[in-house]
């Protein structure tokens, strides 16, 4: 306010000096004129001297009058000046004030205009009939609706209310306006205007206006176009809804939790797992909604770990018991994230139910194991190979044979792992090409310098895509041996059958020979009373006759006949042993007692040709004290053991073994009893061993043995007693014959 006052003060300061200078000028003019009149009179004295004094007087008086007038005028003027100055100052003040008001007004107007023009709002007015009377320029600028569409119309005429909710909204609004109440933030959608203006969202606020008399004059208010905002909000809502739908459609559990275990977000699947709705689940604590505490604690510990470390965590497998108590296996990934509107890190989790996959996987694994068990339990060596001969599968017997595990052998050429089968590669290729199995029976192999037999089958594999072959190898050495034994046995049986058929026919003549020779020997003896009586009756000297018989070797020949008959009878008897017999002669036998009997028999066995002397042989007894009774045909087994003892004794005598010894040993084995006859004689080579149980095979001199002893023994043990007779021997290292008889419960009880 001080600035407009300054010019008026300056004016006043200038005014006063002017007035004073005017007064002084008049005074100076008067005094100057007097002085001039004096000096001029002096110079012009010669011409005007008589009137001059008069004139000066006149002038003087005139001057005094003039001066008086002047002074009066000056005074008046001063007074007048003062009043003018006073009025001027007043006017100046008034002027300044008005100017200030105008300025303020203009400023206010400018501000108002600026505000209305700059604001996103517009101003509207309506009259007492609720018709628009005024719309500020912003209206058009903002909405694009020409004001002429609006002015003179009520608000509800601008909108289309096509839903009941809309109609209700407008009814309330109209009611409110008719009650002259103020309102705020009424939102509606326009239904007028051009394309740009149609369907816009407007938000209006207003209050009623009254005149000085308090008469209702209408409404005045502001409006704003919130179309963009509404659109953005709608888009956001739609986007959220879409996302919501997506996460709800995902069958996996999607959730977010804070560090305290509260669910910040959960999809349908998560809520369902807890038996809740999404709304029920969100904001609740995991600890409360989860039925199994141990699981909840574990999961929350994981959450916390992720939150604290800030690193994602992948949980390949975890159990989760749902609300129905079903235990599910889940695969979960937990990721740290900052939820909108939250300052703290939360955890976002996605959990996939892998129960079925796991079950399927376990089923596959179980099946694989099951199949592996099956192929492992097969006694055959099974080798799976691809079409190029590289190993894909080995079963356990194959692992044992190769000494390599499946894993170690996988991918190696089968011929390298099983050198004995290298030659089968051609069969593998052929089997695959022809699509049918190829068999190589009785392939000979050398296993630890022993001859083995194997049946090898190559089966092609034609399963979709997995072509290749399976090589199956069965060690049939045992079977081949049994088969050859069976051939032997058959041979023996046929011998037995033959013997049985002809025994009767041979035994009678043999009987005649043997009995006849015995009678002859008796009836030529001179000490027999009947002989003497008959000799005396016919006059023969028996003593001389005997000398004659002696000298002519007749006794010797007779003995020869007898011996030949005995041998023939023995052969027949041995051959007869090869026929099957009933077990009627079987019974419990005291083993030790039986062995002692046999030893006695062997010791007393008289060999005419003194081929051996049993008394020279040391007998070692190594009896198992736990073994008492054997269930067998006593005479048969006695025959077998006697046979073995005689064989041993004979072999040792023949070779001149320095300290001949035979050990008789008994042992109880899990399912059989063992009787061993072990000698320290010359032993046998492999060739002999192979044939030793063959009928009519003998190493003894012709006539010394029938060649049936061991084969009869073999037959008795294996066929009649269902046992085993085996021999271990090496040249120079003695021989060990082992008889194994099946253990019978009745024999032990």
């Amino acid at each position, binding site marked *: 306010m001080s600035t407009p006052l300054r010019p008026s003060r300056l004016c006043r300061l200038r005014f006063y000096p002017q007035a004073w200078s005017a007064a002084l000028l008049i005074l100076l003019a008067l005094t100057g004129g007097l002085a001039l009149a004096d000096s001029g009179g002096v110079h012009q004295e010669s011409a005007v001297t008589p009137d001059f004094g008069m004139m000066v007087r006149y002038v003087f008086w005139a001057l005094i009058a003039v001066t008086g007038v002047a002074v009066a005028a000056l005074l008046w003027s001063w007074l007048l000046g003062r009043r003018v100055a006073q009025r001027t100052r007043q006017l100046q003040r008034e002027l300044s004030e008005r100017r200030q008001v105008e300025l303020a007004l203009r400023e206010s107007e400018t501000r108002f205009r600026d505000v209305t023009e700059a604001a996103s709002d517009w101003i509207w007015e309506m009259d007492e009939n609720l018709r628009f009377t005024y719309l500020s320029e912003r209206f058009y600028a903002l909405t694009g609706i020409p004001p002429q569409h609006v002015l003179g119309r009520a608000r509800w005429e601008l909108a289309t209310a096509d839903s009941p909710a809309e109609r209700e909204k407008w009814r309330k609004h109209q009611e409110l306006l008719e009650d002259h109440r103020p309102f705020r933030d009424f939102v509606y959608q326009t239904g007028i205007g051009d394309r740009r203006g149609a369907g816009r969202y407007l938000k209006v606020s207003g209050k009623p206006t009254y005149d000085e008399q308090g008469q209702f004059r209408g409404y005045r208010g502001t409006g704003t176009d919130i179309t963009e905002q509404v659109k953005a909000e709608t888009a956001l809502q739609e986007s959220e809804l879409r996302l919501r739908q997506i996460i709800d459609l995902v069958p996996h559990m999607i959730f977010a939790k804070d560090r305290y275990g509260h669910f910040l977000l959960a999809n349908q699947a998560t809520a369902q797992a807890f038996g809740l709705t999404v709304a029920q689940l969100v904001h609740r604590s995991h600890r409360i909604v989860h039925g199994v505490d141990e699981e909840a604690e574990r999961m929350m510990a994981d959450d916390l770990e992720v939150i604290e470390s800030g690193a994602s965590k992948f949980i390949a497998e975890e159990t989760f018991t749902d609300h129905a108590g079903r235990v599910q296996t889940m695969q979960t990934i937990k990721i740290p994230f900052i939820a909108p509107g939250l300052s703290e890190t939360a955890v976002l989790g996605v959990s996939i139910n892998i129960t079925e996959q796991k079950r399927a996987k376990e089923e596959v694994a179980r099946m694989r194991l099951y199949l592996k068990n099956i192929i492992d339990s097969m006694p055959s060596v099974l080798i799976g190979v691809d079409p190029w001969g590289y190993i894909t599968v080995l079963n356990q017997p194959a692992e044992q044979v190769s000494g390599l595990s499946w894993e170690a052998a996988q991918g190696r050429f089968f011929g390298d792992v099983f050198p004995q089968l290298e030659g089968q590669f051609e069969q593998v290729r052929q089997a695959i090409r022809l699509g049918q199995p190829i068999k190589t029976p009785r392939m000979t192999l050398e296993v630890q310098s022993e001859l083995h037999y194997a049946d090898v089958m190559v089966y092609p594999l034609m399963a979709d895509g997995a072509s290749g072959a399976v090589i199956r190898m069965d060690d049939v050495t045992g079977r081949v041996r049994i088969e050859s034994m069976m051939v032997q046995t058959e041979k023996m049986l046929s011998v037995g059958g033959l013997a*049985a058929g002809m025994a009767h026919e041979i035994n009678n003549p043999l009987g*005649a020979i043997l009995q006849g020779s015995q009678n002859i020997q008796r009836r030529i003896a001179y000490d027999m009373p009947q002989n003497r009586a008959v000799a005396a009756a016919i006059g023969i000297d028996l003593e001389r006759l005997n000398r004659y018989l002696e000298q002519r070797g007749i006794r010797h020949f007779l003995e020869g006949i007898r011996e030949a008959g005995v041998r023939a009878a023995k052969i027949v008897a041995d051959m007869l042993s090869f026929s099957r017999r009933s077990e009627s002669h079987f019974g419990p036998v005291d083993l030790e007692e039986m062995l002692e009997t046999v030893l006695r028999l062997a010791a007393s066995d008289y060999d005419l040709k003194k081929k051996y002397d049993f008394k020279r042989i040391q007998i070692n007894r190594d009896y198992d004290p736990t073994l008492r009774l054997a269930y067998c045909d006593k005479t048969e087994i006695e025959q077998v053991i006697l046979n073995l003892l005689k064989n041993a004794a004979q072999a040792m005598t023949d070779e001149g073994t320095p300290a001949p010894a035979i050990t008789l040993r008994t042992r109880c084995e899990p399912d059989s009893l063992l009787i061993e006859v072990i000698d320290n004689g010359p032993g046998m080579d492999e060739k002999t061993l192979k044939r030793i149980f063959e009928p009519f095979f003998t190493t003894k001199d012709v006539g010394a043995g029938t060649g049936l002893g061991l084969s009869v023994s073999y037959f008795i043990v294996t066929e009649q007693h269902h046992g085993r007779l085996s021999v271990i021997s090496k040249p120079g290292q003695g021989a060990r014959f082992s008889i194994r008889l099946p253990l019978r419960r009745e024999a032990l009880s």
Partner: protein
Amino acid sequence: MTAATMDWVLIVDDEAMIRENLKAYLEDEGLQVAAFEAVTPALDWLQESGICRVCIMDMRLPDMDGNTAIRILHQRYPQMEFLIHTGSSSYSLPDDLRAMGLDDDCVYHKPLTDMEPLATEVRVRAGLGEDRL
């Protein structure tokens, strides 16, 4: 029965040399022996003389088998003792013969390399040879 009647031994065997050799041996042992090649003449002889304590019976005979002959003889002469002398390797005693008191010791298989054990048995059964055992 007199001691004399006790001495008689009956041999039935169709093989002449067997029959004769046995007869000779047993006679040398002091026994009275009647030997026949078949059952029928043996039965006829028994019917006539009616005296015999021990019988040595072959199995395979022309008119009937030895088992049947033993049954008949046992029925007629319950006191008679039987020894079986057979050439069959597969011979086994029928149960009814076992019931009559026969056992495996009564069975002798041909060929006999020594007739002494048989003779001893005959003597024992005939009630003669206890002192010689």
